[in-house]
């Protein structure tokens, strides 16, 4: 930019002295404001003890919850026994009952299980012997190549026999069973490979291998120095292996917990109890179109819809009904408020009802209902009507009657008086004067303001819902409080965003049609 030199400035200053008069304070005003704001922020920083709060912030949890918005976590636990493993999925896992995911491969062999009725203490002799036994097992790679029973006995013989383990005393309480059991589990998470055998857990990532000796007696003992993505708070305690987005692994002395994370909303359409669950899209379509009824008395299409609507995990039906409640709250609350405020504003406007006392009283009434916050109205009406849209409608109605009353009466006090004079001069009665002299001027503005508030109340209705007025807000709050359903939260957020955008555009379109582009507000 071309700048004036000091002498040029002096010339201009001499020529127009008045322009430069009193400039000093104004020149420093922004700087002073910034300093004041800085000081204020420093005060607030200490007021809320921000540094302490920030130091205590749990960012790792934040990351996990954010990942939860767009992904699903499957949580198998691998329980470690003396010479075999048990893989268990939680009861309500998204992969269904007894899932066989391809990222988790099991290897079975026939082993002799020992159950000790009284003392569950594992004999240390068995543990050392077993590592040798595992050593031979490592030769066979995947679950598909499970050796037949006779082969199994073969390598059991080679790795000093497991059957000898129960030979250690206490025979009175122990019982032995020989059967097929899992002896080795391989879990592939992203780039890492986890191998679990009863006494040794191995993690391979980026070409590096970390081994952990595990056992109820010795805890978890790493054989190598741990990198920073593997943490162990104290020696022999449980070990966390952080694999970033792919999940994490917890190694405990008696079990290995796998948190396998994958993108997508599992079971979004059909839950695991649905006959359509787990089928590819073309099969689902074919099934819906086929005449053979899965459930008698109900067409397949109906059944599919019913299964989606009542999906146990995503609760589509409930979410949509609650969303509708929120929309209805905003719609009815705003509409009723504008209908009540409309006649009242005529009485409150000085130029239309020339009674100072009535004007003043009504305006203070508007101020009152407006200033008693929507929060308080919501609490009050939730108490009166119980949670649900009625409480929300009433809260919005009372708050916005005040707001609309104020806005409308201010608009009325600013109308052009010429049109009224014109209508009055031809002998119209007072009602007709308002009808033809004022309403055509203010109605578009009123409707426009109502539409604007309708749109913003859709947002408010969400939040007062969480206060107990029901609707999607309460549902959101409940899902968040359980701290595990963040994908459901995200689903509802997306629905709310869509609703707000649609309303935003509809009301924007209607408003611009009503009052022309020039006065488009909001």
């Amino acid at each position, binding site marked *: 930019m071309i700048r004036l030199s000091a002498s040029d400035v002096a010339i201009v200053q001499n020529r127009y002295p008045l322009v430069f008069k009193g400039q000093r304070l104004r020149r420093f005003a922004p700087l002073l404001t910034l300093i004041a704001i800085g000081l204020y922020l420093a005060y607030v920083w200490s007021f809320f003890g921000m540094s302490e709060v920030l130091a205590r912030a749990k960012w790792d949890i934040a990351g996990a919850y954010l990942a939860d918005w767009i992904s699903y976590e499957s949580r198998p636990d691998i329980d470690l026994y003396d010479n075999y493993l048990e893989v268990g999925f939680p009861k309500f896992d998204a992969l269904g009952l007894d899932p066989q995911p391809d990222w988790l491969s099991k290897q079975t062999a026939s082993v002799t299980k020992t159950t000790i009725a009284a003392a569950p203490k594992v004999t240390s002799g068995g543990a050392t012997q077993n590592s040798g036994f595992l050593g031979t097992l490592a030769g066979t790679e995947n679950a598909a190549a499970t050796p037949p029973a006779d082969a199994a006995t073969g390598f059991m013989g080679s790795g000093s026999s497991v059957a000898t383990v129960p030979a250690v005393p206490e025979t009175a309480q122990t019982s032995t069973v020989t059967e097929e059991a899992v002896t080795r589990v391989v879990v592939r998470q992203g780039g890492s490979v986890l191998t679990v055998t009863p006494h040794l857990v191995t993690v391979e990532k980026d070409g590096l291998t970390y081994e952990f000796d595990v056992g109820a007696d010795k805890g978890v003992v790493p054989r190598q120095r741990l990198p920073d993505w593997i943490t162990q708070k104290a020696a022999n305690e449980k070990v966390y292996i952080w694999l970033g987005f792919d999940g994490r692994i917890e190694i405990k002395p008696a079990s290995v917990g796998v948190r396998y994370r994958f993108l997508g909303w599992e079971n979004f359409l059909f839950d695991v109890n649905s006959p359509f669950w787990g089928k590819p899209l073309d099969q689902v379509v074919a099934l819906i179109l086929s005449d053979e009824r899965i459930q008698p008395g109900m067409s397949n299409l109906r059944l599919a819809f019913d299964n989606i609507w009542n999906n146990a995990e995503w609760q589509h039906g409930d979410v949509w009904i609650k969303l509708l409640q929120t929309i209805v709250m905003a719609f009815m609350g705003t509409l009723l408020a504008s209908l009540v405020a409309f006649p009242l504003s005529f009485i409150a406007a000085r130029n239309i009802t020339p009674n100072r006392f009535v004007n003043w009283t009504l305006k203070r009434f508007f101020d009152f209902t407006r200033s008693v916050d929507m929060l308080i109205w919501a609490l009050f009406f939730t108490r009166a*009507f119980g949670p649900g849209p009625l409480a929300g409608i009433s809260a919005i109605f009372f708050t916005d009657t005040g707001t609309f009353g104020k*806005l409308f009466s201010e608009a009325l006090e600013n109308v052009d008086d010429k049109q009224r004079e014109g209508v009055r001069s031809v002998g119209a009665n007072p009602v007709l004067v308002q009808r033809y002299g004022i309403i055509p001027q203010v109605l578009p503005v009123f409707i426009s303001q109502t539409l*604007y508030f309708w749109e913003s109340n859709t947002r408010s209705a969400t939040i007062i819902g969480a206060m107990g007025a029901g609707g999607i807000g309460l549902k959101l709050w409940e899902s968040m409080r359980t701290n595990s359903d963040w994908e459901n939260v995200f689903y509802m957020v997306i629905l709310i965003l869509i609703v707000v955008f649609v309303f935003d555009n509809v009301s924007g379109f209607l408003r611009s049609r009503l009052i022309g582009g020039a006065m488009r507000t909001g």
Partner: protein
Amino acid sequence: MLDSQHSASKADIVEANFQKLARSRRLYTWFALVALAIAVSWSAWFANDSNAGKFLDRLPYLFDFFIDLAPRDVMEPPRALFDVESPYFDGSFKYDYPEGRVYLIGDFYLPEYFYKMIETLNIAAVSTIFGYALGFVLSFLAAANMNSNRWLRFGVRRFLEILRAFPEIVIAGFFLVVFSLGAIPAMLAVAIHTVGALGKMFYEVVENADLKPDEGLRAVGANWVERVWFGMVPQVMPNFVSYGLLRFEINVRASTIIGAVGGGGIGESLRLSITRGHEAKTIAIIFLLFVTIIVVDQLSAYLRRKLVGEQAFLMERAA
């Protein structure tokens, strides 16, 4: 010149067309009214049907809330407000007003609810400041006359819309997990919404600004920052500050509500005292909240009138 007969027939055509237009207009109006009536009656039915208590059944209990609120004597709410000992003190939390005192210097204390109110006002002010600062920067990128890159403009505008529409309660709930209970989640939730809301209002102001100073600056070769700073900021600043004050007003209410769902401040105190059935405390808080909101509203209205003048002030209210 037209002869009289000719003009009469023309007048008939005009009249006929006018009647036709009026008829179709009336038809549309009726159509809209009927549609609205159906929507309203269905909504009313739905609201009543899905509510926990039915409207007519619950109507007699409407004022239960107030009956429950009746304190033991008239002086109880002021005592609760100023943390003075209550004669009914029986060791329970309900009548233990001095418990919440915040001692500043020696025996001089700030009553609990005043302290909480200051907390809420601070939450509102800080979130307004942050929202203002970010909205300020983003608004120039979102305005068509300051940013000719369509894609960037589109991106910034959608971003602002998402910030504006994203439910505050989710942001608060999420940050509650990170920071645990306290003011910061509420602050972030309100601030994020404020960025979106102010950003949108700001860019509309910028788009309506006079472009002559900008042209002048471009003529002398000013860069983008200089154009914004010398050409735009001086003329949009009064409107920006006015919108900022309006937002502060709204944010005081918003941070009270967010407080009630776990963000601390007076909102939380209110919810707790209502759920625990502490009448005197509830009345004290409602009174304090009411007075504060009126004071903040009047103060900001006064400042805004001075900043932007009566006419623009009314226009802003609508926005």
